[in-house]
């Protein structure tokens, strides 16, 4: 029995065995900050999102129906015929169904709503993007992840796969699993999306980042979710 188990474990790809959320590499104080909703500044955005949701969204949606939604995004958007991430979906909903001006990317309103919706899925596993229509974007995301960029000529793989767990200056290089977005980053002194984080890495290697909402970011997010499938959602996470 034990041998079959060991064989089963061996059969899994290496990345599936020892995947760890960035949470585990944080200082104990920062972990405590994330664990305690009273100390977690991200909960301020969740509270604002809840207020906005109850004011603007309850004609169609309920709080209960939002559970698990964040775990299956990015998803396929029928109207545009393209993959769409959670923040994009909320913007599109405002534009199409409320006929209002959609909130800008990284605006307080959109971050708050996204954080609130994603918070409803806290603890649920990220689901693998299995929709066949997402396959091209998944492939594009995988290619982008492995593509060398910028003046430093680095790809995501070189840090986040090859050297994950080692240090870049004083910080542990995380495995880049997007488990807690939008998250409160101490460096930002605020809440930010995965796209903002990706921009940070891109400017870090001196490459031109994509514009907010670009298809490339959605593709990368699909690939990262595929890579992190099964890991628990932590929104709103806290990171250093």
């Amino acid at each position: 029995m034990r041998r079959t188990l060991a064989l089963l474990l061996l059969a899994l790809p290496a990345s599936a065995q020892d995947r760890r959320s960035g949470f585990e590499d944080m200082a104990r104080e920062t972990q405590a900050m994330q664990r305690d909703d009273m100390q977690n500044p991200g909960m301020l955005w969740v509270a604002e999102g809840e207020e906005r949701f109850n004011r603007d969204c309850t004609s169609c949606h309920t709080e209960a129906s939002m559970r698990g939604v964040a775990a299956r995004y990015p998803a396929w958007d029928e109207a545009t015929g393209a993959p769409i991430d959670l923040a994009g979906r909320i913007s599109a909903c405002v534009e199409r169904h409320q006929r209002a001006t959609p909130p800008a990317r990284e605006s307080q309103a959109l971050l708050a709503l996204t954080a609130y919706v994603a918070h409803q899925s806290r603890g649920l596993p990220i689901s693998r993007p299995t929709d066949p229509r997402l396959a091209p974007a998944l492939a594009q995301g995988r290619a982008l992840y492995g593509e060398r960029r910028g003046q430093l000529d680095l790809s995501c793989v070189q840090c986040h796969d090859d050297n994950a767990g080692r240090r870049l200056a004083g910080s542990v290089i995380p495995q880049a699993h997007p488990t807690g977005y939008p998250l409160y980053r101490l460096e930002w002194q605020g809440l930010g999306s995965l796209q903002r984080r990706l921009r940070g890495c891109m400017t870090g290697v001196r490459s031109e980042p994509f514009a907010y909402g670009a298809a490339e970011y959605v593709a990368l997010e699909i690939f990262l979710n595929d890579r992190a499938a099964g890991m628990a959602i932590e929104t709103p996470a806290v990171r250093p």
Partner: protein
Amino acid sequence: MARVLINVPRSAKRGDIITIRTLIQHTMETGYRPNAQGEVVPRDIIRRFTCSYDGAVIFSAELSPAIAANPFLSFTTVATRSGTVTMTWEGDNGFAQTETRPIEVT
């Protein structure tokens, strides 16, 4: 109005030590940082926090530019009698916010 998260126990036994925890949304702009145009962003911080319990000040703090955004404060007091816990934040640009929470002491 800034968004706040406050944790004051609803009820306590007389003589119990209670913990009061507050988190307020505020940029705490230091006054030393340049913006994208190279101009220094004017200081915008919370300067003072006061907490009174049934009219008497039980805790106050002076905040400085070195304190991070969205300051979290946690302190303890002894539950003496039923009443109101009043928390006030004051800061630059006329920032002032007061929140109250009732506490029942048995």
